[in-house]
């Protein structure tokens, strides 16, 4: 199909609903053909941003560019953005064919071209042969395919996805996720995808913008978002992570620093990265459950132990919930073998490698690293 590759540029965008500041200080540049995801909890503003791009809301400040065109004052029906809705929004009074043809008829295309494009779009979503069905005869997954075909058929400048998979069951969700990604890549069309599911975001995206409280928290490729979060919110929202307060001590050389984890009358010595901690005496330490090392050697660094309170077995991973002097800490064991999972109530010892330690500002939550936050 003759799809135009279009970039999206958003600068200094702000949107209010009455007193509520729904979006502020939004700046992003989405490249041609990029699969870009807006990730965040419900109410964070991600859907508002998508709907503002679609033109259903008018921003109070800032600009939106589609390619070279400033679209601030272009009404929604002239923006040529293909949207896929959360609850499918398949027209119930039309057949599958009529649904997909709707946008093409509006564009007054010749009947022959409409027919070609509808058939092609339905083929792309594996719904060829379903033309005459009515939506009430389709499953949720099939309805969403119709929604996708309908949005693609108009050859939009960008595809917009508003949590398109959240109403589908788990298995179908994975299937559709891969399909959406495949179709988008094969057409080379720019896509903006909204989800609250961090796993979905990591798998499907070229880049992710994590959104919270109407602000962008971090933009990056999935690996970066997960491994190198720019603040405590991103670290806790994407993947699992353990956090606790530590007191920073003298330098340990080699870009490391001594620290202490205090709990009750117990003081555990720690070695943490020194970057960004200059002049600070305290911080929040965070590490991911899968980064801990099993150990019983007395000399290993950053050693903690806790009482096992609960276990959950997930096939490839066993997750252990520990009580470390009154703090909840989760650690993981990979490819557990029989007998690998200790009994509840027993003591489990583990170590946190210094390079797995992430530090955040206690008040602002900003990441402490070379050159300051962000």
């Amino acid at each position: 199909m003759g799809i135009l590759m279009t970039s999206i540029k958003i600068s200094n965008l702000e949107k209010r609903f009455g007193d509520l500041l729904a979006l502020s200080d939004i700046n992003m540049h989405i490249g041609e053909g990029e699969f870009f995801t807006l990730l965040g909890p419900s109410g964070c503003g991600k859907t508002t941003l998508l709907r503002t791009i679609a033109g259903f809301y008018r921003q109070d400040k800032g600009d939106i560019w589609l390619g070279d065109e400033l679209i601030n004052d272009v009404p929604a029906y002239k923006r040529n953005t293909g949207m896929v809705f959360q609850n499918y929004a398949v027209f119930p009074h039309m057949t599958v064919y009529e649904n997909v043809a709707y946008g093409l008829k509006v564009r007054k295309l010749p009947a022959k071209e409409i027919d070609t494009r509808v058939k092609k779009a339905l083929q792309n979503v594996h719904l060829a042969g379903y033309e005459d069905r009515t939506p009430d005869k389709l499953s949720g997954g099939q309805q969403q395919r119709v929604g996708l075909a309908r949005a693609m058929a108009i050859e939009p400048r960008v595809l917009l996805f508003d949590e398109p998979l959240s109403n589908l069951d788990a298995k179908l969700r994975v299937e559709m996720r891969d399909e959406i990604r495949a179709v988008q890549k094969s057409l080379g069309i720019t896509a903006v995808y909204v989800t609250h599911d961090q796993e979905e975001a990591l798998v499907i995206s070229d880049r992710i913008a994590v959104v919270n409280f109407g602000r962008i928290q971090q933009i990056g490729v999935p690996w970066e978002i997960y491994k190198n979060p720019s603040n405590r919110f991103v670290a806790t929202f994407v993947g699992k992570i353990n956090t606790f307060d530590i007191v920073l001590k003298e330098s340990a050389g080699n870009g490391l620093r001594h620290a202490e984890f205090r709990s009750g009358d117990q003081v555990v010595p720690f070695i943490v990265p020194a970057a960004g901690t200059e002049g600070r005496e305290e911080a929040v330490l965070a590490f991911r459950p899968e980064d801990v090392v099993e150990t019983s050697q007395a000399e290993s660094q950053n050693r903690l132990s806790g009482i096992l309170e609960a276990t959950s077995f997930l096939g490839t991973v066993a997750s252990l919930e520990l009580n470390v002097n009154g703090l909840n800490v989760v650690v993981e064991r990979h490819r557990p073998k029989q007998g690998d999972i200790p009994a509840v109530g027993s003591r489990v010892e583990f170590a946190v490698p210094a390079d797995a330690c992430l530090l955040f500002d206690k008040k602002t939550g900003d990441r402490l690293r070379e050159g300051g936050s962000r």
Partner: protein
Amino acid sequence: MIGGRKRADIWTLITLLGFAIVLVFLVYPLFDVFKYSFADKETGVPSFSNWVQFFSRTYYLRAFSHSIIVALLTTFFSAVLGIPLAFFTSRYRIRGSNMLNTLAVLALLSPPFIGAYSWITMLGRNGFLRNFFTSLGINLPPIYGLLGIVLADTLQYYPFISLMLAGALMTIDRSLEEASENLGARSLKTFFSVTIPLVMPSLTGGALIVFMMSLSNFGTPMIIGGNYLVLPTLAYNLYTSEISESPGMASTVSIILMMCASVVIVLQQWVSSRRKYASMLVNRPVVKKLKGIKSLAAHFICYLIVALSTLPLAIIVLYSFKNTSGPVFTKGFSLQSYKQIFFDVPKTVTNSFLYSLIAVLLIASIGTVLGFIIARKRNLAVRILDPLLMIPYMVPGTVLGIGFIVAFNRKPLYLAGTAIIIIMTYFIRRLPYSVRSAASILKQIDPALEEAGINLGSPPGRTFRTITLPLMQSGIISGAIMSWVTSMNELSASIFLYVGKTMTMPIKIYLSVADGYFGTASAMSTILLVVTGVAMFVVTKYFNRGSETFIAA
């Protein structure tokens, strides 16, 4: 939301249209009524004389208390008939319960005075039932007055209670009653401590509608009330006697009637706004099968109730085929009465059809677009307009009729004696129902569908036409059919507004009954009944609407 641009679009124009309708056809005439009620009869200067008179003369106060007594008794007896019927048909297997419901609805929707006039033919001064009982040596009490009004009103309005209550009883989550029994309550205890409280809002809601309907009913007390005046008939009598002067006293009575109606409506809104317990229909209660004598008794009660309310309708149909000689029924059957209608007053029939048809087109189209802005464009102006559009709920037909005739009997809007004034009466009286139903249909249509249309490149107007309207279609049409039926049967307002050439069937029936020409009246009533029946059939058959459509009407 749609469009996103701030400019005067089509929806702004529709909002303005809504305000114009409210101002011209509600505020203006009602304000006139208000003004006249506070004007001295002779001099026209502002005064409380009408109000002082109303509250100091027993003649007026009696009509007030009569109205309340009629409404209370009608509500009570409607509950007596409606509750058992609802309970038996919803919880036990009653053969032919669909037919029973249909017949009850037919009685409910029949022209508002057919019952009264039918009971006169049965139990009036020379009624055949009365004569029959007299020949047995039993003298029945006179039917004219309180007894007749309550009898006719009850047998017409009890379906409000039976249908609303049955609806609630059928949608209670079965597991609630099961939970109660699981916790150790006997079934009788469960019924009184779980079932009854759960359906109470529907029961009181239905009862208040019955109260409201009998309070503002004009036709029944006019025909069968005799000297027993209630507020609507008092207002009518005052108006016809005041015709040469200003309708001051009639206006005062109207305002008092409207205030009573408003109190009831406010109560009813309050009851229906409280939590309704009707749940998703996953766990419907079981319909039990009764055996032996119990089953017989339940069937007998249900059939008796419905038969009583169907009897007056059947008598009318029967009488329409009887031979007449002037006002007297003679032996034998023929189509004589129908011939008379079509030769003497064909215009009356065509008027009724034409006026109600035009009114329905207005009601459906304007009601739909107003319903759309109320459901989808809740800006400040629309939020002000919304309650204003509901005013006709509180205005009894009699009051609207008086308001229209005083306001539109002079410039700048001289409409008296035209067909327009009657059409506008139908329009205004039904508009709130149409707006409400359009808005509630829209609430069930996902706004994302409209957004999808817009997103695919269709401008707002086209999206409304190609997406929203087709989805609303069946709701709009079935609502329009109901509006048509109620407009065809409208009497209480149009009686003030008709002239010879704009006479409609209900008015002709009323006049024929008053003159004793029962044959013509029966034939016309039968025509209206058939129209009502066909409309009901179409709505249930082709639009799959349940009885809730009819009680919402």
